[in-house]
């Protein structure tokens, strides 16, 4: 076959595309058949004036390259076209150049001037691609030119070009590592860039060129954290991985208290030691903390650096990313950096990834396997997601098995074993073998089931598949080693198996067992040796070695019967082909058979051979894998890959946090307050930079609108976010306070001061707002100034005392519960208007309505948490949550809110009372407010509220309506009508509002609970939120989530609640039993299973967040 025909064959594929394009050129067919001329013709085409011909030629050349054919002799002809105007030709020339430039360096230089011109082109795409290709040409002579181009591009006005510059950095570095210092300068400059486009690429360059220069990150840390959510997904992965490393060097271990406790509580060690082996060190915290809280506080109170918190908070939403790499990156960040109580959030996301492609599954399972060793509790709720399907590929099955084994504990072992039982019957024999090993591991780890497992395995010995039997023998051997005296019958049984089992490993294991425990089977052992001696020559090496071993041991214990046999075996071994066996035989003979020459050792032969051997530890192959950063290639391979950056250990003492402060002249001193401040200030920068990169951006909402509006309210992200924020604030405040009054006094018990301060803090927020709102004309910058002044230390005292006053006022005000809420509301809406009305772009308007909406809900959340936290409102009935029925904008000035008043609805006891609050924000009166056209699910009923005749402008009215939801959470839809308008609205109750309180005694409760077992009982394990570990907080949260009343209870470890559903009067019983370390168990007994499950969910949410 000549080359030409082969080429034609190949050609067949590509011609079909091209057909339409070059069928018009009748010559092309001929060109291709004449092999030797083809390059000439291509050259001709490239030299022609017609772009279409050039394009055609380039396409063919690229196709040649793709097929691995050498097209390098065309280089001069192609290079000429680098200046071609047709952009597609140009791109293909670039492809060619990058491929061949290194081979033809001199010729490649011809093209450089074109790129240099391209770098000055007004079109940013051309500038960028010129830089891309220039930096991809690996010719050393042009390094200085590249360097210059990169430096210039790094200050280009187009972020796209700057991004390209960031990409060019590692290319140049790999070409000439001596440029490192200069490149670092460029990286430093680009790191300061504020566009999301550049962030990912420059961090990638940083990782490749100078990962050790962690100091470059300090100043950009907060910016990176804040930008993260808007960076493109690939950038996110790189940034998160880098920040994980960074955080490990800069912050303290959030779990440090636990490790300290271990050292500190030496006296208690034995007590806790008992459960340590089962659950590592997870269980101890709660109890000890109480006892030693004071002492600990003196020694080393752990306060999380606000920057550390910032990182955790900003990465959390990315768990919802569709990109598996991003989810994995966040998961490893949480695993390596988060406090134990918070790591749990990643489990759900990782389990979700298990639905993905099998490659993704493989990687994720590897990581999950490592995580389960350290933090088993995290994945326990998802146990069933790791169940194996017969259609899974074997390697996935084995990994899932690994995870299941790691997750096994006393409570779930029976389900797991049942599951294993089905696996054993699988047709996939490798998998069956792995399952048997897994059973072995479960048996060693969990003492209670050891006998069950052993029995199960013994039954497997009669399996027809030899592999299964062999594997079982091996595992049984390991198990028996733990307590041989109890199981001599099993050993006997196994001795019988030597006749049948042929798998060498299994035979060897049996022989070893008999030899080791020959005292337990004194009669059988010699007989086995006799049989083995007979078949010695036909055995595998590994079996032969064990036969010698058995012979030696028997000789030592029972030399009368076995002396001759041993001699015989040793003689056979002496002439074996394998030198190992010959060696062993010689060695053993010297040891056991006493001769004149034998040394001192033979006296100790018995001790040597029959020493007590420690039972093997069956452990996971994933143990200790976590010293590799999770999610990395090195972790996957369990070997260090090139360029892997070790994850550093936590520092002993935190490095100076002030390095992360961005220099702005006003703030000279470093305090935690300033830090908070900067977070806020950075955002305007960010939105500036967005403005510069194009008009379309302003159309997108959340992030920039958030920056526009949230600059003040910091980062209360969402409903519960506000709470966590306040906590953090109070923490940092504490820190500060401590600095001030270092020796003055010891801290008050932590919790008290915390809650006090947090309520202060929260009071202050609305305060700020109201201030602002009063001076209507205040501009953005004023706002900044104001909050600045508030956070500057000199004034902080004032503001605090102010807040104190405010707080008192607030308490006074809070007596009539509805009023202050309403007031706040109104202020907020005014605030929105001030903020947003002057927005310039027409596109922005609709987004604003959305935003203001979400802002209101944010604030609503705020006011809610306010009321929940303030001590005045402990009584459950006052912790009412307001829901929005009609927003001011959609309602054209009319705002309607509703809350479930939790009062009995007098006209009809089967209805839930809903209190509506109407506010007329418009300038005209609203008349005849009533409801119409009620649409309900079958069975539901509504008692309408009485018509409100007149609602003057600016006034507020309230009314009560009753809805019988039929114990379902289906929404009640109806129209709210005024004299001019109709609005569609709907009320959907949280499940907790579908019940009314009942009072039960402890005994009644127990009795009722006894009747609602089985299907009607739902039990859920949970880890209580750190702020919700006392009884008081639990009661508060549960009663806020559901309208239940407390049932008295003798134990302080349990809180019980009871209620009845409104419609059907079914009992609802809730028990929260707390354990150490924030662990708790929630039990809901309810005849209505749907209500029960939903209630469990809600209460879980309330207790864990």
């Amino acid at each position, binding site marked *: 076959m000549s080359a030409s025909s082969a080429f034609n064959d190949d050609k067949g594929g590509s011609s079909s595309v091209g057909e339409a394009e070059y069928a018009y050129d009748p010559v092309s067919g001929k060109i291709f058949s004449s092999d030797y001329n083809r390059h000439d013709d291509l050259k001709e085409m490239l030299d022609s004036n017609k772009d279409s011909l050039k394009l055609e030629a380039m396409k063919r050349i690229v196709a040649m390259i793709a097929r691995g054919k050498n097209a390098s002799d065309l280089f001069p002809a192609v290079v000429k076209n680098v200046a071609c105007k047709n*952009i597609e030709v140009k791109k293909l020339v670039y492809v060619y150049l990058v491929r061949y430039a290194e081979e033809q360096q001199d010729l490649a230089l011809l093209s450089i001037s074109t790129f240099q011109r391209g770098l000055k082109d007004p079109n940013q795409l051309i500038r960028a691609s010129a830089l891309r290709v220039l930096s991809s040409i690996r010719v050393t002579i042009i390094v200085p030119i590249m360097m210059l181009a990169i430096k210039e591009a790094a200050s280009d006005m187009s972020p796209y070009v700057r991004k390209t510059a960031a990409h060019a950095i590692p290319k140049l570095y790999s070409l000439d590592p001596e440029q490192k210092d200069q490149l670092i300068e460029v990286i430093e400059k680009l790191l300061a860039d504020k566009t999301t486009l550049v962030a990912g690429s420059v961090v990638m360059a940083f990782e490749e060129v100078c990962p050790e220069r962690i100091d470059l990150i300090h100043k950009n840390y907060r910016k990176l954290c804040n930008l993260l959510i808007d960076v493109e997904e690939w950038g996110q992965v790189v940034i998160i991985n880098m920040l994980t490393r960074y955080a490990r060097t800069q912050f303290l271990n959030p779990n440090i208290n636990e490790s300290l406790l271990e050292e500190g509580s030496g006296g208690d060690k034995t007590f806790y030691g008992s459960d340590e082996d089962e659950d590592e060190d997870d269980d101890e915290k709660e109890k000890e903390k109480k006892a030693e809280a004071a002492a600990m506080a003196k020694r080393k109170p752990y306060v999380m650096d606000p920057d550390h918190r910032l990182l955790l908070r900003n990465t959390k*939403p990315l768990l919802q990313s569709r990109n598996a790499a991003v989810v994995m990156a966040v998961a490893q960040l949480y695993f390596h950096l988060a406090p134990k109580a918070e790591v749990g959030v990643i489990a759900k996301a990782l389990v979700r990834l298990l639905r993905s492609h099998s490659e993704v599954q493989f990687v994720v399972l590897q990581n999950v396997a490592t995580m389960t060793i350290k933090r088993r509790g995290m994945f326990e709720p998802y146990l069933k997601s790791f169940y194996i399907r017969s259609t899974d590929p074997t390697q996935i099955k084995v990994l899932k098995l690994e995870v299941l084994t790691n997750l096994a504990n006393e409570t779930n072992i029976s389900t797991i074993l049942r599951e294993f039982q089905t696996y054993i019957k699988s047709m996939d024999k490798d998998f069956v073998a792995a399952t048997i090993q897994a059973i072995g591991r479960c048996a060693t780890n969990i003492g209670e089931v050891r006998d069950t497992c052993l029995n199960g395995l013994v039954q497997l010995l009669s399996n027809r*598949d030899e592999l299964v039997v062999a594997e079982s023998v091996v595992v049984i051997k390991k198990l028996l080693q733990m307590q041989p005296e109890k199981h001599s019958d099993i050993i006997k049984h196994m001795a019988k198996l030597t006749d049948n089992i042929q798998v060498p490993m299994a035979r060897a294991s049996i022989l070893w067992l008999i030899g080791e425990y020959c005292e337990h089977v004194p009669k059988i052992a010699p007989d086995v040796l006799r049989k083995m001696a007979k078949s010695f020559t036909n055995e595998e090496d590994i079996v032969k070695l064990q036969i010698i071993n058995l012979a030696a041991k028997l000789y030592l214990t029972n030399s009368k019967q076995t002396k001759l046999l041993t001699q015989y075996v040793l003689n056979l071994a002496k002439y074996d082909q394998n030198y190992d066996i010959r060696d062993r035989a010689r060695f053993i003979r010297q040891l056991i058979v006493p001769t004149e020459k034998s040394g001192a050792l033979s006296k100790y032969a018995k001790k040597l051979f029959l020493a007590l051997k420690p039972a093997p530890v069956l452990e996971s192959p994933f143990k200790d894998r976590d010293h590799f950063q999770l999610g990395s290639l090195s972790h996957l391979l369990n070997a260090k890959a090139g360029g892997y950056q070790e994850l550093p250990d936590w520092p002993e003492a935190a490095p100076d946090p002030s390095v992360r402060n961005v220099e702005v002249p006003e703030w000279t001193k470093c305090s935690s307050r300033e830090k908070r401040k900067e977070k806020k200030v950075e955002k305007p920068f960010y939105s500036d930079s967005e403005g510069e990169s194009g008009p379309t951006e302003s159309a997108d909402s959340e992030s920039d609108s958030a920056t526009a509006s949230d600059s003040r309210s910091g980062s209360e992200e969402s409903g519960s976010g506000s709470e966590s924020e306040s906590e953090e604030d109070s923490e940092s405040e504490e820190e500060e306070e401590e600095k001030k009054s270092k020796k003055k006094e010891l801290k008050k018990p932590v919790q008290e001061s915390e809650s006090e301060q947090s309520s202060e803090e929260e009071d202050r927020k609305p305060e700020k707002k109201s201030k602002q709102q009063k001076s209507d004309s205040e501009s953005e910058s004023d706002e900044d100034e104001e909050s600045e002044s508030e956070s500057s230390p000199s004034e902080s005292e004032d503001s605090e005392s102010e807040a104190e006053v405010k707080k008192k006022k607030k308490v006074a005000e809070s007596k009539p519960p509805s009023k202050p809420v309403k007031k706040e509301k109104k202020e907020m809406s005014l605030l929105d208007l001030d903020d947003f009305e002057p927005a310039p772009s027409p596109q922005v308007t609709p987004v604003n309505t959305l935003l203001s909406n979400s802002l209101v809900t944010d604030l609503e959340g705020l006011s809610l948490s306010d009321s929940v936290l303030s001590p005045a409102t402990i009584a459950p009935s006052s912790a009412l949550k307001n829901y929005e029925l009609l927003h001011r904008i959609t309602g054209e000035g009319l705002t309607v809110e509703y809350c479930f008043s939790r009062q009995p609805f007098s006209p009809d006891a089967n209805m839930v009372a809903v209190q509506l609050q109407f506010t007329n924000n418009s300038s005209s009166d609203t008349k005849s407010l009533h409801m119409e056209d009620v649409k309900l699910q079958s069975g539901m009923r509504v008692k309408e509220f009485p018509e409100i005749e007149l609602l003057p402008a600016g006034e507020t009215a309230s009314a009560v309506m009753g809805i019988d939801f039929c114990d379902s959470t289906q929404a009640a839809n109806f129209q709210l009508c005024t004299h001019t308008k109709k609005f569609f609205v709907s009320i959907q109750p949280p499940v907790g509002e579908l019940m009314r309180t009942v009072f039960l005694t402890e005994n009644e409760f127990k009795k009722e609970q006894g009747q609602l077992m089985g299907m009607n009982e739902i039990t859920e394990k949970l880890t209580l939120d750190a702020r919700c570990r006392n009884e008081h907080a639990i009661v508060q949260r549960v009663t806020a989530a559901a309208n239940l009343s407390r049932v008295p209870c003798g134990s302080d470890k349990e809180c019980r609640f009871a209620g009845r559903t409104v419609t059907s009067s079914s009992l609802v019983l809730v028990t929260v039993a707390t354990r150490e370390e924030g662990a708790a168990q929630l039990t809901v007994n309810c005849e209505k299973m749907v209500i029960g499950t939903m209630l469990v969910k809600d209460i879980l949410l309330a207790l864990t967040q």
Partner: protein
Amino acid sequence: MGEHRRRSAQTTGKLFFLSVVQTEVPPLFVVEFLHRVADTFQDYFGECSETVIKDNVVIVYELLEEMLDNGFPLATESNVLMEMIRPPTILRSVVNTLTGGSNVGEKLPTGQLSIIPWRRAGVKYTNNEAYFDVIEEIDAIVDKSGTTVFAEIQGVVEACVKLSGMPDLTLSFMNPRLLDDVSFHPCVRFKRWEADRVLSFIPPDGNFRLMSYHVSSQNLVAIPVYVKQNISFLETGSCGRLEITIGPKQTMGKTVEALMVTIHMPKSVLSVNLTATQGSYTYDLTTKALIWTIGKLNPQKLPNLRGSLSMQSGVPKPEENPSINLDLKIQQLAISGLKVSRLDMYGEKYKPFKGVKYLTKAGKFQVRT
């Protein structure tokens, strides 16, 4: 392209994508990128197969050139790519040959620069429409006795949005509390979801997956069908018996369609001799897969498959019965009960045409025997 890479491969259909890496890189990063490449090919050429790639090698080169720079992903949004490199159509290639135009865009796509890279500017449609498909898959393992060992629902909301301009959409559900775990297309505003449980987003143009979600096993998962089976291999002689009946269980009053049963028989089963009361069956001798295509499930007359299996003689009987994999579809039903309550559009004046479809499918639905 990714010049220095080692390891990591995966398949789509029969094609393997291999990427070589030399240094440390998150494995999922590579895997995810390769999937993105495969998806892009799919978008451009309609399928991702060897012939298609051979035929379009130039475009493939151009695409990879845009997607990767020195091994780091550059532009992976197919909306952006389509603006830079236009997908091949017959019409376009004809036009290009006549006018000498090219497939490559002259300008930097606007999406590349904005923070909404997924949407290109200046989209125009005469018919503005937005369709959403709520597709749920039931993953379940049912054991021999018919009890559910494990069941969960995985759902996705697929969207096909063809709207002009820059629409800002808000999609809300009747019962968002059902959703246990969600992941979103980057366009969805996460904060809005956290606060109000509504999906607020500026959609990409065309088809995309808006969200995928998970309804956990804590909520009782309705299992739409039950399977009565009896598969036995006789100890003596070389045959076995098989009988399978399928009936409706919790179908919420909808018809079960496209019912299909797949059983991977043990190697020793040589052939099968069965009769089906409904549908037809095939037995692949090489893969040992018995596939019974049933179609619609008629509750009055339950489909039944019975008959004998002939086994290789002299081989011990298989100790485990093969498990049964089920496939089915239920139109107009989301088995979790999830319902879209409304879709609102802001930012544009016109009135779009809206539609929602529901579909329930069997995912990995396995009955152990």
